[in-house]
């Protein structure tokens, strides 16, 4: 689908982001409590591909997006954009790079200033980074509006006069204005009606072809990610637990969490949905302030064994998978294997029969 070659456009290396817990009482001698939003995330985004990032709320997807574009400072680790390390750049040195990476935000209502006309909003990146005159800018903005399927005559309207889908098109037009190399989409359709979602997704796919874009596409909806992604990374509690080409992941998820996540995705065919076994994970996402020791998923994993809670497994290929398909699990699922109902209760008493 895409030309994957050379060095990656974005390389994230052992990225760590901790947020200090506000208002937490600091005991003498104890370290300040932190939320482990990201803990050692490493991944690459290749030129021309779409990397989907999935995971439930609180898994660190959005934090990853914000650290990748340096909207947030990282605690440790590195982000290389186009070969350049960006986590230590000054704001001044970062500015030219901002042209190359843009974001599309989740909330089409919150991401547009309600007091500004859309022409001015879409023209913002041009006003910041170019010296074009007002008339030239207006022409470019109207071209952009046409490109994303908006009526250029609505140049002088306010965001309140547009529907959610139209507003997201405004966000897309703004992100596209400087012809960036990378667009990070942070749940771009999750706030939209299902009927509108497909329109925006198709728009994004079309634009990728037309402008040779690279996307990082964050979502919690697996069917949405499958539609647009070449590769998918599954995140759980601040870590990448599995990454693979989209088709491989959906065909044969290795990590129990990926499998559970896939089984939770709604299926449009009700007959099939009934026949399918749904794996319901027990418990909530553990506190990111005190993540479980060892494998982070171990506290909810039906296949958990004593070893899992000691040392966290590495992200690596299993069952002779190609290097592109990696998962971090000591007891990965084989092809066609599913987390069965019986096993789903196994967390109550770990079975000792299966030794590594």
């Amino acid at each position, binding site marked *: 689908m895409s030309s994957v070659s050379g060095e990656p456009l974005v390389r994230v290396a052992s990225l760590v982001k901790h947020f200090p817990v506000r208002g937490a009482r600091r005991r003498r001698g104890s370290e300040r409590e932190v939320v482990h939003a990201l803990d050692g995330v490493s991944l690459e985004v290749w030129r021309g591909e779409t990397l989907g990032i999935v995971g439930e709320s609180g898994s660190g997807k959005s934090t990853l997006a914000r650290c990748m574009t340096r909207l947030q400072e990282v605690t440790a680790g590195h982000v290389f954009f186009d070969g350049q390390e960006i986590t230590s750049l000054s704001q001044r040195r970062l500015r030219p790079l901002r042209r190359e990476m843009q974001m599309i935000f989740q909330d089409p209502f919150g991401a547009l*200033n309600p007091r500004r006309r859309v022409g001015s909003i879409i023209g913002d990146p041009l006003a*910041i980074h170019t010296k074009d005159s007002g008339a030239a800018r207006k022409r470019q903005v109207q071209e952009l509006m046409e490109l994303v399927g908006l009526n250029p005559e609505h140049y002088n309207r306010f965001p309140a006069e547009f529907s959610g889908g139209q507003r997201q098109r405004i966000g897309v037009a703004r992100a596209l204005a400087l012809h960036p190399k990378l667009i990070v989409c942070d749940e771009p359709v999750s706030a939209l009606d299902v009927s509108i979602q497909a329109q925006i997704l198709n728009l994004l796919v079309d634009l990728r072809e037309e402008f040779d874009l690279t996307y990082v596409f964050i979502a919690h909806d697996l069917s949405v990610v499958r539609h647009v992604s070449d590769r998918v990374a599954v995140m759980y509690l601040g870590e990448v637990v599995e990454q693979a080409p989209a088709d491989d992941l959906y065909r044969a998820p290795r990590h129990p969490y990926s499998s559970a996540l896939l089984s939770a995705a709604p299926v449009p065919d009700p007959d099939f949905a009934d026949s399918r076994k749904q794996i319901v994970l027990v418990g909530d996402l553990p506190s990111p302030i005190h993540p479980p020791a060892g494998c982070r998923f171990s506290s909810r994993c039906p296949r958990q064994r004593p070893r899992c809670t000691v040392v966290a497994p590495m992200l690596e290929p299993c069952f002779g998978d190609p290097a592109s398909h990696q998962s971090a699990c000591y007891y990965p699922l084989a092809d066609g294997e599913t987390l069965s109902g019986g096993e789903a209760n196994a967390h109550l008493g770990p079975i000792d029969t299966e030794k590594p």
Partner: protein
Amino acid sequence: MLKGPRSAEDAWEEETEQAAAIQGRSPWQLAFARLRHDRAAMIALGVVVAIALVAVLAPVIAALTGHGPDVQYLPPIGTTIDGLPKAPSAHFLFGTDDLGRDVLVRVAYGAQVSLLVGVLATLLAVVIGALVGLAAGYFGRVVDTVLARVIDVMLSIPFLLFAISLASVVSVTPIHIGPIVLQQGLGIVVIVIGTFSWATVARIVRGQVLAIREKEYIEAARSLGAGSWRIIVIDVLPNVLAPIIVYATLLIPLSIVAEASLSYLGVGIPPPTADWGSMISEAQPYYQEAWWFLVFPCLALIITTLAFNVLGDGIRDAFDPRATGTRA
């Protein structure tokens, strides 16, 4: 959002250049449209305009009556033989004061002082308050901690006590602060009132900015590479302007009353300048014999503050229609 056919009233909104383009109505235009339909606010606006006209036209009123604001008419014309103020008559419509001056003319001139101090002190308070509030709210961290404490300190100082002591010190000897010389009079009153009013503005602005800073469009602007200055001016300021304007309208009557209080206590505008506060103070010994001397400056003060307050309420409702429970 669909709009009905344009009325003639809306025609002014059209930019002539873009007559063909479809023009959205800005939140400002919507607010003004709502304000126009608020009868109480429009009456209050009329009163405010009338008072401003009286202030501007005070010399004309003086010329029409033939009485200067500081001219003292001797008994028996200006006062009775006993030296008491004379009642309203065809000659002196609002009567005269204890020194034989025309109360009508002095009330008109008093409007000049009141409006000037009210508007200038408010302007000063709004500028300082907005700057401090924007800086504290936007930059946060240490800046916010320091500025928030300064605001707390300012709000904890009792205004009248401090203003009286400051103004009375200044009245004895002009204070030199570098090139600035503070002499008793309009300037010092404006500075004193402005200095004691900005903290509330700063607190309001800071609170608004704290909320706006978390909005996704601010993050979007940062992701586009906009600097702090650009974000504050283009994305933050327009969103806090509405509460600033509302509070400023309500701050004007407060400043007018503060100025009158200072003058009443003899530390505001020094005599013989006509001023409502000092007039009320001068009228006090005569209230049993000469009600007009006390009533007219009081009425002027009450009508002015009431009009500004009603107008301020109307503007607040216009900017936030949900607060009133009615839909516009």
